[in-house]
């Protein structure tokens, strides 16, 4: 019987994915009889594409991106949601005078694209702010991989994750009171992040379902362990980072912040969170991410069984 599972991450090896690495290192997958391969992501990797190409059995993805892929004809289904709140935020220089979303008009804002622009676009269209520049709208920059645009003052605000880029801004010597931050959570436009997604057709196969049940169970065990042991989890992540570029301090802090996003989630998707995400996306007026409420985009069969 085939017990191999390949998981495609959506970014490079870091504490954002600690649960999976911990499950791997602590032998939780092995206990479930699984042979798991974790594929790191990167700026150039679209996890849905890898999934479609058969390069992975499961992927991690932000829900807006996955739902949009679903509408594009790639039937992906959420089988588990270890993150129950969003870490996405905008970080602005206080001295630009930005105090609320309406102050974004006429400003330059860095946004991640590659399928990660949807939350921002929905938010702006809910605020009624055009995103094509000019006095009344915001000028959008496709943000690279780091916080330089803010530090170099090429942008007034940039996208940051609570657990990563925000810390980098602080590390660069900026104090918190020089900054204004807008968490998507606080603005009521939060969308779900880092869910586990698989191809719909695979779910029809009972063997595959069984494999995923074991996978989710083990992964959640990993997550809970990581939440409780941030120091050790960070070390495990570091061991798995082949670039040798990460620092321990950074990963420990990231783990601590990540733990806040996974806290309280047992892996099962909360339907209310799902609905809020869909509503936010549908509210996106002129530039809709999805045009209609998706059907069958998530299932609880895996988590139901895994959590028994």
């Amino acid at each position, binding site marked *: 019987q085939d017990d191999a599972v390949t998981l495609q991450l959506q970014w*490079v*090896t870091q504490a954002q994915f600690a649960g999976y690495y911990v499950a791997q290192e602590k032998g939780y997958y092995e206990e479930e009889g699984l042979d798991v391969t974790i*594929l*790191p*992501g*990167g*700026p*150039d*990797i*679209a996890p849905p*594409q*890898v999934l*479609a*190409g*058969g*390069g992975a059995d499961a992927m991690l993805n932000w829900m807006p991106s996955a739902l949009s892929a679903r509408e594009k004809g790639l039937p992906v289904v959420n089988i588990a949601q270890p993150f129950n709140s969003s870490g996405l935020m905008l970080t602005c*220089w206080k*001295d*630009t005078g930005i105090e609320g979303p309406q102050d974004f008009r006429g400003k330059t804002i860095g946004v991640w694209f590659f399928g990660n622009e949807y939350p921002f676009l929905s938010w702006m269209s809910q605020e009624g702010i055009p995103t094509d520049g000019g006095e009344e709208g915001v000028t959008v920059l496709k943000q*690279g*991989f*780091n*916080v*330089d645009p803010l*530090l*170099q*003052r090429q942008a007034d605000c940039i996208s940051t994750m609570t657990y990563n880029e925000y810390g*980098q801004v602080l590390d*660069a*010597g900026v*104090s918190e009171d020089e900054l204004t931050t807008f968490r998507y959570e606080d603005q009521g436009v939060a969308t779900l992040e880092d869910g586990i997604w698989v191809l719909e057709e695979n779910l029809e196969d009972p063997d595959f379902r069984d494999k995923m049940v074991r996978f989710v169970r083990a992964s959640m065990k990993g997550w809970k362990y990581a939440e409780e042991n941030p120091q050790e989890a960070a070390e495990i992540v570091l061991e798995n*980072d*082949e*670039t*040798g*570029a*990460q620092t321990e301090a*950074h990963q420990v802090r990231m783990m601590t912040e990540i733990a806040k996003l996974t806290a309280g989630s047992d892996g099962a998707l909360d339907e209310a969170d799902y609905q809020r995400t869909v509503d936010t996306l549908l509210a996106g007026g002129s530039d809709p991410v999805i045009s209609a409420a998706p059907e069958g985009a998530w299932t609880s069969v895996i988590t139901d069984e895994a959590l028994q």
Partner: protein
Amino acid sequence: MTDMPLSAPGAAIGRSGRVALAIRGLRHQGGPILAVVAVLLALWYLACIPMNAQQSVLLAERAGAVVTPATAAERRDMGGLALTFANPGPATSSAFAQDRPRLPAPHQVAVELWNTTIGQSITSKRSLVWHAGVTLAPTLLGFLIGSVLGTLLAIGIVHSRVMDLSVMPWAIASQTIPILAIAPMIIVVLNSIGIQGLLPKAIISAYLSFFPVTVGMVKGLRAPAPSDLDLMRTWNASGLRTLVSLRLPASLPYLFASLKVAVAASLVGAIVGELPTGATAGLGARLLAGSYYGQTVQIWSALFGAAIVAAGLVAVIALTQRAVLSRMGLTR
């Protein structure tokens, strides 16, 4: 060492003669390089001051110094040079020691290079040498595939009018496709047929390196003078013969110029290929990680590491060129 066989006296002279020659060559070459490098370093240090002025002044402000203009928002629209003149003290004092400089000072890069090469065991993930090794494998394989393929294509194009007319335009078109855009697709497609690891990266690197070779070799293979070709015709030499005995030797200057470009392109290809394979290790991964965390010094040292590898590869080709051409009596 003691029971080393006695070598003929002539051989010994030959060897020391060669060493002497090499040393002379170095001295010959060394002076100008050192002079140029010295000038560049001086310019580099100078450039650090205005380049890093924003940050220097900001740091001074945070440390409590009085700076002009007083707010970062006002300073933002000023050029680095203007800011340097407005705040000469802060700008110069901390230009060369920042954590995230826009332009790191040469010694910062050197120190980082030292720490990540000599300062690490080469099997460590923090060793640049290890990463260079990871990148070198697909580079060399890709270069091999690329130059063989490029040469074969050129041979086909020179010998077949159909290929000349139909393949060349599409070879050109293939190069205008941004590799970074299709690299992930190549990886995904290869992955789905079970090919992973070295080969996908080597293919990307071959994709970038075959073209300079094709372009150069098409020209080179057509370079023999008409009279030289006529001679072959009077002997009724076969196409293959003419290729081996005339076209290939005559194309060597073009070949080597192309190979130098191609090997550099191969390295770039291998580095690019690392990104869509998860950028787990290699110089590309280092570069990416550096830029992801805004570690300018780390980027620069990885960049220099890559350039050193490229320069080394180009130098190997230049040496081969010299050896081959002098063996063929073509150095005058």
